[in-house]
């Protein structure tokens, strides 16, 4: 360790040599002071007013200098002190940087560990599909209408042109409310088998133009299996005005399907039968999943039957006091679960109703 030597020779050359030796020792010791505590010791040793190395220089070199040399020694000692202070400050800066570096290093964590996820709830895939459908039609000017899930025979069947005992009723296995035998058939309560009753209720309330969609839950007496559920969802739509044509039906659904699945999707229309529409159509879209090449959702056909639709049957207008000679309109409907199954590659409709967290969280 460096100690301040007593000087015999106070000549400038001798002083300069002594100063250089001192500074070299300071630099060497500063390098050794790596951690904050040893740096503090280092600084005290050199800079302390009481007995620090520089103070000793004062005593041993300046005060001991013979009078004629005092002036020159004083200047040189001052220069030496300034130089020493600068070197200590420099060393302090280096030490602080090194200390921060090692602190940061010690704080290093394993960033490959998983993040702490705060749970975010997930929309149900069926309702998310329904949301998307609703948004497409709302943008096209359709309002949303709702109605009861427990309906009368009148609204579910009769006013939709399903006469009592008509074979068309067989296609909709209906769940009935108990103890209705005493009531007139049209008043008997049942679980709506489609959301079409909402169309009747809407027309009863509104003067045309009517432009509504009716999303909702429907029920059928279908034993649960991979493709059937007694509870499922539909989206229906209705557009009635003084000049609505079959071409408008085609154009509207073509536009809606393109909004939903992308502009490359094509639509196809072929005759079908529903009691409440005439003409009735079945609407297929070119498979949006494979682009028409053939895949599982489209059963390799390139096409997916997606909607039932048609021009509102004049008899239905009769039930709601609309004049079928002045008004015309179209209606359409589709099953939401089926679309969700195709969209998300779900092979069992029952999955939608288990509340299985492992299932639901896949739709995050």
């Amino acid at each position, binding site marked *: 360790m460096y100690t301040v030597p007593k000087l015999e020779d106070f000549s400038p050359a001798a002083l300069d040599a002594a100063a250089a030796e001192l500074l070299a020792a300071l630099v060497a010791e500063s390098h050794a002071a790596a951690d904050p505590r040893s740096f503090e010791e280092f600084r005290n040793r050199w800079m302390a007013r009481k007995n620090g190395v520089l103070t000793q220089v004062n005593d041993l070199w300046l005060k001991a200098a013979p009078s004629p040399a005092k002036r020159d020694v004083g200047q040189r000692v001052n220069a030496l002190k300034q130089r020493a202070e600068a070197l200590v400050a420099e060393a302090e800066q280096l030490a602080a940087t090194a200390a921060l570096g090692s602190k940061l290093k010690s704080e290093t964590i394993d960033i490959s560990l998983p993040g702490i996820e705060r749970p*975010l709830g997930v929309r149900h895939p069926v309702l998310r599909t329904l949301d998307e459908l609703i948004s497409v039609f709302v943008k096209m000017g359709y309002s949303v209408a709702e109605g009861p899930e427990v309906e009368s025979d009148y609204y579910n069947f009769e006013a939709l042109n399903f006469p009592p005992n008509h074979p*068309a009723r067989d296609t909709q296995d209906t*769940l009935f409310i*108990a103890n209705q035998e005493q009531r007139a058939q049209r008043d008997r309560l049942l679980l709506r088998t489609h959301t079409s009753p909402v169309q009747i209720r809407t027309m009863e309330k509104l003067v045309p133009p009517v432009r509504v969609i009716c999303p909702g839950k429907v029920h059928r007496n279908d034993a649960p299996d991979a493709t059937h559920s007694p509870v499922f969802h539909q989206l229906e739509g209705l557009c009635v005005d003084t000049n609505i044509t079959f071409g408008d039906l085609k154009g509207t659904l073509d536009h809606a399907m393109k909004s939903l699945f992308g502009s490359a999707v094509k639509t196809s229309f072929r005759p079908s039968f529903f009691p409440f529409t005439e003409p009735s159509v079945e609407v297929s879209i070119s498979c949006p999943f494979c682009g028409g090449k053939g895949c599982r959702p489209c059963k390799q056909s390139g096409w997916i039957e997606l909607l039932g639709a048609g021009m509102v049957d004049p008899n239905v207008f009769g039930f709601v006091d609309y004049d079928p000679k002045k008004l015309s309109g179209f209606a359409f409907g589709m099953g939401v679960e089926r679309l969700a199954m195709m969209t998300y590659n779900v092979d069992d409709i029952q999955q939608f109703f288990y509340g299985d*967290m492992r299932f*639901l969280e896949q739709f995050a």
Partner: protein
Amino acid sequence: MKISPNWIRDLVSPAATDRDVAEALTVSGIAIEGYFGEGADQTWEAEITTNRVDAMNHYGVAREVSAIYDVDLAPLAPTVAECGPANFPILIEDAEGCARYTARIVRGVKVAPAPAKIAHRLELIEQRSISNVADASNYVLNEIGHPTHAFDLDKLEGGKIIVRRARAGETITTLDGVERKLLPEDLVIADAVKPVAIAGVMGGEATMITFSTHNVLVESAWFDPASIRRTARRLGMHTDASHRYERGADPGITQLACARVAELIVASAGGSVSAEVDAVARTLAQPRIALASSEVKRILGVEIPPAEIARILHRLGFKVEGSGPEFHITVPTWRLDVEREIDLIEEVARIYSFLKIPNTLPSFAGGVIELPNARKQAALRSRLLSLGYNESLSSTFIPQEDARYFAVSAGAAEPVRIANPLSEEASFMRTTLVPGLLLQVAYNLNRGNSDVRLFEAGHVYAMRGEAVDEHNSLAFVSTGGARPSGVHGKPEPLSFFHVKGDIEQLLAAFTAPGVTFDRTVPAWLHPGRAARAQIAGNTVAIFGQLHPEVAAARKLKQDVFIAVVFVEALYQLALRQPAYTPISRYPAIERDFSFVLPEGVEFESIRHKLAALSIAELTAILPAETFRGGSLAAGSYSFLLRVRFQSAERTLRDDEVANWSQQIVSAVETLGGSLRQ
């Protein structure tokens, strides 16, 4: 049904491949959905809608082809050499049930296996070949669509046929060997003594054709659809005949069908044919409908030339009068589904092709109207999703005991029972969403998903007198950890207060002044860890820990927390409209008070007392810590209360804060509390 394209080509010859014909048929309403076999033995699976009974046979499909390709349809003209009168009276006693009954007698037949061509054709379309006589009837059914029946003439007693309603107590053993009890509403074919067939559904075993039959009576009738449907449904029978009669067979074809069956019998089994006996009880009107080209344009949106309209309808068998723009159209007897102008427009449209009608968009008038509660519903949903609950859907149906037990309010209405439920467990409509969600919790726990957070929004139901009341409800359930265990720290178990916090977050979406909580909760909740939330006296939620006994009964082995939100009460409140309040520029001062309180003094009463002090600068009252045990006397607990004072206008002085603090201490002392020394 199965269709043989080869058979179709016997009846019509379009210049197109079978595949093209199938695609053209599909586009026009006879959907060909499957192709089987090759060459002459190819068959199609055709999906024919219930209204198109006229097309449920080869001739009907051929008629469509004739219209699509504008080519002639082979006429149907069976030839029979008549050998004399039948001398067999037909009496229709029930004209409503049977409009027409045509019969012929074929004597001297030799019943044998059917000829190869007939048997092969029937087998191609998945029909079983039985014998030359039975097959004749079945062949005609598939050829021209009319159901006919062959009786063993010698088994008919009394030399006549009577079409009547069954008599009380009558029975018949049908061809399938089942004895059927008949009711007076059932239409039967009877001989002088007994019913020999259930009209339009199935023949009787006693009079069926056997290999020892010599003489045959061929029946070709028209029965009322509703009557056939009623009987077939009651007896649980569905036959090729009833399928067609229920949907409306052709009343104009009974003679032709009868002759055709007789022709085929003679050709394959020999014998001589009598003249026909044709009993007509009533005639069905053939509608004559006015059709205007302008109406075709109004509905379809496309101008179809009048000549094209006339051509299409003519090819489909309609009689067309006029050349447009107005027509008068007489509907053929086989099209009972066509009654109105719109039905004709559909016929024109589908043969013209839907695909040729240009796509257009209707002009827009009027605006989109939002459902009244749409935004409130969306606010609740998005908050629950943000709080980490997954959206779920559960069954609408629950068992009877759940429907009653989980009712959410006292004096709940009668639950709604299903007359024809899918199962005993699904025989009632849900009165609350709770059992459905609990079932889903169990489903998850049984599969090792121990952290469950689910919510469901949906209808619940109850009887109101004769009517059913439906209400919107919302429920959410959680179990497991509020924070999962893992490398990052200890797990944090869910508690009542997590649920309460979530309820508070939901209520915060609304302008909800003065939410109060009390312990009035249903029996299925833990009595000490559950609460009811009310706003202005209306219950808006009940929530808390599921009663441990209920959890145990459902084998839920961890604490389950559940909440029911009465959304319809909430919807009475406006959504909270955020508005900015300036943030004070002056410092806030916090003070902590460590009180010892008697057990039973709850935070709510302290908060209430402090609020009553009406100190405007008292901006927060926070429970900071509670502690029991240690040096504290039994029956008391320590409570660290933290309050915050702040003014929007000035810096607070020490003396005011000291004064307010003293008021706070005094207020708590009135509740039996004391500052801890």
